[in-house]
């Protein structure tokens, strides 16, 4: 029965782009990617209780990584994907292992510096990263002899989203998911129950960073261009805001938050122009003060 539901969701999400125009298709693809990012970040922040500002940087590392390995180094696609993923994992481990040894806010601060440093390196990377202009005018190499593009490429994004959700869903219900929640709610008690707190944090951070990297690799062939402004710090805040507004710790919350905050600027632009960030900030303060369980929490209260 559950398999039927997953297949139905996949078919519905995958069929939609064939009925959309090219503009709406583009919006739809980015919406799916944001949902995938928010789901991953929710596992780290909402379920494991760790704040990091590097989630969007890893999205960028994945995107730049695969493009550089494919077109500057000239590797075949499967190897480029695996290597880019490996880079994400190694970087995440380098940051997380020392940062999670310490109590408190260290992971957030180190990853804030990492995210900023990433942008500096992109801008100064010369011919490797293409500097401020980034890299453009490349195309996804043929997969089994066929060029995947247009609405068909949206299938890849839907597959990524469904796999991300399925993986996080399973993990959340496993021993590891419960360990993560225990680490979030009471690290001392978790340690007393035999949970290795530091290792749990490191695994959660590395896993979600790798998922962000995967989403980035998929993103690289959505616009066929990667450049520094796309991966700025603003978006790291936006993912955090999506999860808080939607409801941290719940997959449904991450999805609702991502859909709402992604689409809000489109609805608000006739009213507030480019100042939708003002509404976002107010929503976040309001959410933390008034509805700490997010929009999902409000939904729960009324549906009971």
């Amino acid at each position, binding site marked *: 029965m559950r398999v039927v539901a997953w297949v139905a969701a996949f078919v519905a999400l995958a069929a939609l782009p064939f009925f959309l125009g090219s503009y709406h298709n583009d919006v739809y693809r980015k919406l799916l990617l944001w949902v995938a990012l928010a789901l991953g970040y929710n596992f780290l922040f909402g379920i494991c*209780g760790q*704040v990091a500002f590097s989630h969007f940087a890893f999205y960028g590392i994945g995107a730049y990584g695969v493009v550089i390995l494919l077109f500057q180094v000239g590797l075949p696609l499967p190897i480029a994907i695996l290597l880019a993923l490996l880079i994400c994992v190694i970087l995440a481990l380098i940051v997380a292992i*020392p*940062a999670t040894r*310490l109590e408190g*806010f*260290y992971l957030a*601060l*180190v990853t*804030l*510096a*990492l995210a*900023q*440093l990433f942008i*500096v*390196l992109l*801008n*100064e990377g010369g011919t490797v990263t293409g500097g401020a202009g980034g890299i453009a005018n490349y195309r996804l190499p043929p997969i089994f002899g066929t060029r995947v593009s247009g609405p068909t490429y949206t299938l890849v994004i839907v597959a990524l989203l469904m796999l991300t959700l399925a993986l996080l869903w399973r993990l959340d219900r496993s021993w590891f998911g419960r360990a993560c929640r225990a680490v979030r709610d009471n690290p001392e008690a978790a340690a007393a129950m035999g949970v290795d707190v530091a290792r749990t944090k490191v695994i959660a951070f590395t896993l979600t960073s790798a998922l962000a990297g995967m989403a980035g690799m998929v993103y690289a062939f959505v616009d066929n261009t990667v450049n520094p402004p796309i991966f700025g*710090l603003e978006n790291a*805040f936006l993912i*955090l*805001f999506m999860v*808080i507004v939607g409801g941290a710790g719940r997959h449904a919350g991450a999805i609702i938050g991502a859909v709402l905050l992604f689409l809000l600027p489109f609805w608000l632009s006739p009213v507030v122009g480019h*100042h939708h*960030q*003002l509404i*976002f*900030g*107010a*929503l*976040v*303060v309001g959410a*933390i*003060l008034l509805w*700490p369980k997010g929009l999902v929490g409000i939904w729960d209260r009324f549906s009971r």
Partner: protein
Amino acid sequence: MQDFLELAVSATASGCIYGLMALAYLLMIRPTGIINFAVGEWAMVAAFGGHLLLSRWEWPYAAGMAVVILFMAILGSTTERMTVRPLVERGAPLLAPILALLGVLVVTREVISVSFPPDPMPVPFPFDIGRLELGPIGGSYQSFFIITVTALVFIGAWLFFEKTLWGKSFEAVALNRRAAALMGINLSRVTTLSFAGGAAVAGLAGLLVSPNVSAHYLMGVPLAIQGFTALVIGGVGRVEGAILGGLVLAFAEQLTSRYAPIPSGFAQGVPLVFLMIFLLVRPTGLLKVRA
């Protein structure tokens, strides 16, 4: 050598700005444990205050400065009452006010960006533009003004923490909130005061730096990160750490961009590398925390 001395004055001046930003964080972190990234935006608000009062309405500098600092203190304590206190009273985890203040950061920046044109806005110098030569050391009036004001602020902060009962109560709260409350210290008043002080110091930094860089709605985040890096280098334990961290950071930044054989763009990465290394290797900072 001449070149180095010239550099030293301007590096000291920017180190003072970073030190003030670090002090703003420190005033709030010590009693509450709350890292408030909105300090950068507060510096930005004060820079716009300076633009409005000093440049557009042409007030005398001292009066404008006093009004801006007073306004910042009120803004800081209001922010604390509206966003931090309800969460602390509810017993929310420490993360909640930190994240709420990130929301405040965005709201503050956007309110300014809606209210003013997007171009950099001029803020006048307190004195005419000119050079002051003290023996072999020379620099702009503004550099010396920044250094003097910062020195006064840090001496004041040091005296406050070391010599006054109020300062001692801040320290007591920092060491042990419960015990301090049991000793009759009013926790919420200490918290409100720490936010008022933090906003005033951040505002002062914004006002001092703005004649050189102009008031711009995106100036906050870099200041917030530089100030935070200074704080991490110096350590959150002591007031002197803030200014020490600021000076170390500014000299590292300016010396690498002047003398190191790397492209100037990479020099922007120097403070970030410093921040990461200190956080990962020496998270207590350079100075030892006093027992």
